[in-house]
């Protein structure tokens, strides 16, 4: 699907249940038009990864995900040889009294394609969406390598040669900022910081994602979470927590929030004991009273 305006992209995303701010839609639209990677930053649980998933669905193409971690190397990001099959092949040839031929052993048949290689596969009809998730978890070495791949979308495998694509993937990179990603890489990308959503937007997200939740409950939950984000907490709840909490309360058949049920299920929202201690009891009541006044 080809988009001709930001509006079109924004409403298409909405149809896929992703409520995007105008700014995010603009960044995404330009990333598509300029064929540049989009670098998404934001606190945990604000829907960074989701952007890539929705985009792949909209473009009706494959989503290729590369989850980053420390020590991620070429063998896990790009390609690896299938050693077991190579060994078997040698043995089989041996049994037939033949000798293994090196060119054959290191041919495409024995190649394991990892995400980056899959993304630039020349046989691809449509550009894929390549999600490089949580880049901050990888290390400098991988970042440097990625910079190289992103600049010309070609990968060289010594035994086979250079693999290049005429259909470069749409690249979405996410980071939680547990480490500063190098400027050189960020400069190659369009940048967007996903903030926590406003009350109205978050309520809309809850409604679209969980249509079964009672209207009053959804409003109360959203109001409560919004209030928590103004508190002095070590880890603020993200949209993911809002949705988890709503699901939990729907499963418990709650029609509305009350102080007891909030305290009992606070673990779905706050992930540090310090934070739970701070809110539980007194604060829960205060916030809930305020929320009830505000959201009616």
């Amino acid at each position, binding site marked *: 699907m080809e988009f001709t305006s930001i509006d079109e992209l924004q409403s298409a995303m909405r149809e896929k249940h992703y409520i995007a701010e105008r700014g995010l839609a*603009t960044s995404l639209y*330009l990333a598509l*038009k*300029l064929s540049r990677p989009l670098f998404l930053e934001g606190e945990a649980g604000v829907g960074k990864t989701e952007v890539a998933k929705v985009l792949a669905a909209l473009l009706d193409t494959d989503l290729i995900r590369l989850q980053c971690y420390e020590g991620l*190397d070429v063998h896990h990001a790009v390609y690896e040889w299938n*050693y077991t099959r*190579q060994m078997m092949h040698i043995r089989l040839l041996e049994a037939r009294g033949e000798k293994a031929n090196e060119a054959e052993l290191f041919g495409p048949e024995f190649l394991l394609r990892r995400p980056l290689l899959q993304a630039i596969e020349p046989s691809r009809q449509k550009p894929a969406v390549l999600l490089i998730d949580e880049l901050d978890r990888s290390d400098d070495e991988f970042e440097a390598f990625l910079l190289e791949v992103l600049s010309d979308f070609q990968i060289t495998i010594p035994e086979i040669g250079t693999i290049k694509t005429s259909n470069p993937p749409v690249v979405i990179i996410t980071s939680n*900022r547990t480490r500063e990603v190098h400027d050189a890489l960020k400069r190659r*990308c369009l940048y967007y910081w996903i903030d926590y959503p406003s009350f109205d937007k978050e309520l809309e997200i809850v409604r679209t994602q969980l249509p079964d939740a009672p209207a009053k409950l959804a409003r109360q939950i959203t109001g409560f979470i919004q209030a928590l984000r103004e508190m002095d907490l070590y880890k603020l709840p993200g949209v993911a927590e809002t949705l988890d909490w709503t699901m939990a309360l729907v499963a418990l058949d709650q029609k509305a929030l009350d102080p007891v049920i909030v305290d009992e299920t606070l673990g779905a929202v706050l992930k540090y004991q310090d934070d739970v201690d701070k809110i539980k009891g007194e604060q829960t009541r205060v916030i809930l009273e305020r929320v009830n006044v505000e959201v009616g």
Partner: protein
Amino acid sequence: MSGQFLHNLLLFGRVLRRLGLDVNPGRMMDLVSGLDHIEIGNKSDFFYAARTLLVHEREDLPLFDEAFELFWRKPAEANWIAQWQGLTRRRKRPGPIVTHPPLKEAAPQTNDSDSASAEPMTVIEITRTYSDREILRHKNFAEMNPEESEAVKQMISHLLWKVSERRTRRHRPGKGNLIDLRRTLRRSLRSEGEVFSWAYREQKSKPRPLVVIADISGSMERYTRLLLHFIYGMKAALSQPVEAFVFSTRLTRITRPLQIRDLDLALKNVGDLVSDWAGGTRIGESLKTFNFEWGRRVLGRGAVVLVISDGWDRGDVELLTREMARLKRNCHRLIWLNPLLGAADYEPLTRGIQAALPNIDNFLPVHNLASLEDLADRLADINSHPNGGTYARYPA
């Protein structure tokens, strides 16, 4: 796109660069081609397009927003200039970052009136005798005269720093205990697929990142200048990330200004950036700011944390205890450096130190050159446990 608009656009780019944003010609060209795809008449789309292409740090977003608002609004409003100056004052970095020549002799004395107004140059004899050096090594920083302090600064800049390594999760061919199948198979091909010798991989090591959080409150004033020299020297000598923060009533990150190669300029920039020199002390509050805003970003990868403070704290003791505990949980080693610890009769009785002690791995003096040398030795050997025995934590 009209010529006038293009002209304004380029001017806007220059303005952003002046404000300290990392805007280069390539980015401007991207923006020009990006604008082909959107309605420039729609101000909000133009705003978001410019923002996504010209900014790549969250910290720069508010500055960009304000600059955009000021630059692209209807002209001829009376207080435009005043507002603009207000914005320039808030610009991101104090002064240019890279323009200074690294070599001192390249700057000839041309302006006589300038040097006359400056302090008379003191020529410092660096080649001291052995005993002079020994005396200086053990002299308390706070008791030094200006000449001695200059000499010690020179000596500080020659200290050798090294922080011990941690094993990373990256591998390389070597003598480890993990089999390297790729090389094993390659090797076996020489013997028709028969494996005679296994190839191995080993884990790669990297030096641990270092985080320094220094107290610059009134009670630390006599030490502050030399300690900044020491922090600068460490940062310059170490190849791994070194993050530096200072605080008295509030926390300021000084990592960026310290990156400049010219030490004097770096310290001047730090001076401009910090607004609470020699103020009161709020250790607990400052550590909390560090934990909440920076901890997650700079403490990964088994960092070693140095807190430099005399522990004179008027703030909330409970808060300090809690934040010290949090800091301890999030780093590999927490070292507290206290200049007062150099005095023979010092006992850690202040409330601040009392609150902090249970969560400190090493409590060390930092009052003279000898204590810095001792610190250097300890940092180089940090993987052994503070109480003896080896201390392996993996993954760090």
